[in-house]
């Protein structure tokens, strides 16, 4: 371990300079360049493959995970430094996955040593791609309303039911899912957090078409799926809700902050083009764009402020629901204004403006609706009474 953060920074900068393939430097982050990994992953290029392998060997795919599982064993400050240097070098993320974002943290907190040893190295190496199975048709924001059930058949669980909004389920190797293991218990009890291989007979997926077009979302069906009991459940039996709640926070930060999201990085001005040209002297669009810009800049500062608070250990707690709420509503406004400013040309699918506009409408639904976020703020942060 280097003695000081500055030594670490120098060391990592040098490592990046030596190991980052030139063609990856500064490439835009989008569906065509992201590396998701997994059994069936086809690398976009040799460079992508090399970069993943080198980063994995150096512990950079999961910098703060223990070294034993292929992580980097870094401190919070070291990870921050690493990210800053990666950004400075224009280096792409070597690996993205729900395993890194969601399952890993859950296993590190709730998993047995055997579970950690089995799954974490596969995640850090990008060998297994996970997807998440929480939502069910008819449940909506009420995630605890789990109808997919797992019956105890002695040596295995027999799983039947359906999940919805499982991103990339058609491309994933395994799924971590909430299933009901006790049908008589109260709603939030009786749920377990279960790991299931997507290749198990009886598991099928169907992509969901959104109003904005094709999407990574799927429906996932479980039809008499036999799951071996050994290591199937993470955390306590029937206490899967605790695990899920812990992870929801992660998901929220991801969507609200856009850290895992795909953004073009274009400014509003770039998206609108010459305001005088497109909107003429229209004070309505102009005023909306001005207001949006003011709010967006201030929201960006708020993201930073909250990140600093979180990193300084001050803790932001439930107030992070505010970031999810405000950030997603802001993006909806942004997309509306772009559509409005670009007028009729934006109404052709081919212009590429309509799909992100329509897709943005889901921002305030997925990962906890705006209504749920406002409930959380009013009850947990403002401590308004329920009666």
């Amino acid at each position, binding site marked *: 371990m280097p003695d000081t953060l500055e030594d670490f920074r120098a060391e990592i900068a040098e490592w990046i300079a030596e190991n980052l393939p030139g063609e990856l430097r500064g490439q835009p982050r989008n569906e065509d360049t992201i590396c998701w990994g997994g059994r069936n992953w086809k690398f976009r290029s040799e460079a992508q493959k090399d970069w993943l392998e080198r980063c994995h060997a150096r512990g950079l795919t999961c910098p703060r995970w223990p070294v034993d599982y292929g992580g980097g064993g870094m401190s919070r400050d070291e990870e921050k430094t690493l990210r800053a240097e990666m950004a400075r070098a224009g280096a792409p993320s070597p690996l993205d996955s729900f395993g890194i974002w969601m399952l890993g943290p859950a296993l590190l907190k709730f998993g047995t040593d055997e579970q950690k040893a089995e799954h974490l190295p596969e995640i850090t190496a990008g060998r297994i791609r996970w997807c998440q199975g929480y939502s069910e048709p008819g449940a909506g924001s009420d995630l605890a309303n789990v109808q997919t059930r797992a019956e105890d058949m002695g040596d295995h669980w027999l799983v039947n039911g359906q999940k919805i909004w499982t991103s990339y389920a058609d491309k994933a190797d395994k799924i971590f899912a909430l299933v009901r293991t006790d049908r008589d218990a109260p709603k939030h009890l009786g749920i377990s957090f279960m790991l299931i291989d997507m290749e198990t007979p009886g598991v099928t997926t169907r992509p969901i078409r959104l*109003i904005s077009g094709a999407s990574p979302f799927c429906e996932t069906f479980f039809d008499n799926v036999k799951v071996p009991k050994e290591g199937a459940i993470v955390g306590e039996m029937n206490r899967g809700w605790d695990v899920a709640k812990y992870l929801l926070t992660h998901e929220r930060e991801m969507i609200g902050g856009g850290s895992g999201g795909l953004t073009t990085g274009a400014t509003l001005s770039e998206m609108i083009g010459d305001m005088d040209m497109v909107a003429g002297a229209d004070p309505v669009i102009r005023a909306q764009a001005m207001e949006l810009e003011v709010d967006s800049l201030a929201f960006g500062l708020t993201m930073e402020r909250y990140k600093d608070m979180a990193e300084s250990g001050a803790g932001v707690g439930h107030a992070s629901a505010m970031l999810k709420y405000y950030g997603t509503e802001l993006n909806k406004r942004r997309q509306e204004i772009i559509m409005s400013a670009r007028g009729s040309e934006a109404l*052709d699918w081919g212009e590429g403006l309509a799909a992100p506009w329509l897709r943005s409408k889901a921002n305030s*639904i997925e990962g906890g609706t705006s209504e749920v976020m406002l409930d959380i703020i009013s009850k947990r942060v403002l401590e308004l009474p329920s009666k």
Partner: protein
Amino acid sequence: MLRDAARGFLDENAPVSALRANRDAGQAFDPGLWREMAQMGWAGVLIGEDHGGADMGHRAAGILAEEMGRTLAASPFLSSAVIAASALRAAGSDRLGQIAEGAALYALAVDEGPKHAPDLTAMEARPEGNGFRLKGRKVFVADGASADRVLVLACSGEGDEGLTLFDIDAGRAGLSRKGADSIDARDFATLEFEDVEATGEDVVGEVGGGLAALAPGLRAGQAALAAELSGLSAGISAVTLGYLKERKQFDRTIGSFQALQHRAAHLFAEIEVTASAVAHAGRVLDHEPENAQLAVSLAKARATQTAKLAVMEGVQMHGGIGMTDDYDAGFFMKRARVGAEWLGDYGHHAAIVAAARRL
């Protein structure tokens, strides 16, 4: 009575699922449906009885458009039966009979940029011999790819008074049309004019009087489009209210959550206020057409905003299901956006209102 009849017919023959079927089949509208509408007199709603029309007036046309908006019924109604019929009627054209029969399909080619601005028309109508040569491009032409004839505004001279409106055959040499991949799955096209010939007979109204000739058609179209958007708002709102009353979450009907109730109530208020402006626009067009622009722009501005609110609340209150293509909410959202831009957006019409009110 007209409303009830229209609603009954459209619920049965043109529900949102019909629009979906059109889209999946790649067709902008169902010609059979349009024939039936024409037989009911809808194609001639604004055409005098002397030309075989039903001559029911703009308020009636608005009621039909509202009901069409409610189910998103796709048809050439606005382009042919409202816009073209009104412009050609004012000019005393002899093609009204064909429109009333539903036989002649018209498109209005006016916009050249991303925003509606007829007075900035740059398309050339170069005098040549006894006629003109049209050269330039028109965009966002509703029903442009499927129309038989096109009303096109072009520059035959200098300044505002240099604009002339032509009524030409869509098959004329030099005119090429390219359908857009429109988000609302209807027919919006780009039209390229490469020295298209036009004669004096093709002129609607007076040479140099294009804006005046266009005005009755534009006003009628804006009012009917406002009515369509008003109906669309009521349509998605009814769907949403139904969902709020059925759907259960956290062991409660979601319509019992007060935060949603207040938003639904607010939306109701907006819809009611817009409906008044829409009804008023139709009546003023019927009784004082020359003073109707304020009323028409008021209706279009209100309807645009209300539809936007209605579809956004509709999708959000439906949650994830509202985002899926299997569900209807997206169709309302897309149509509302197209309707917002067509024939002048919110700012365009609000500016007309503000100017009339000396703001």
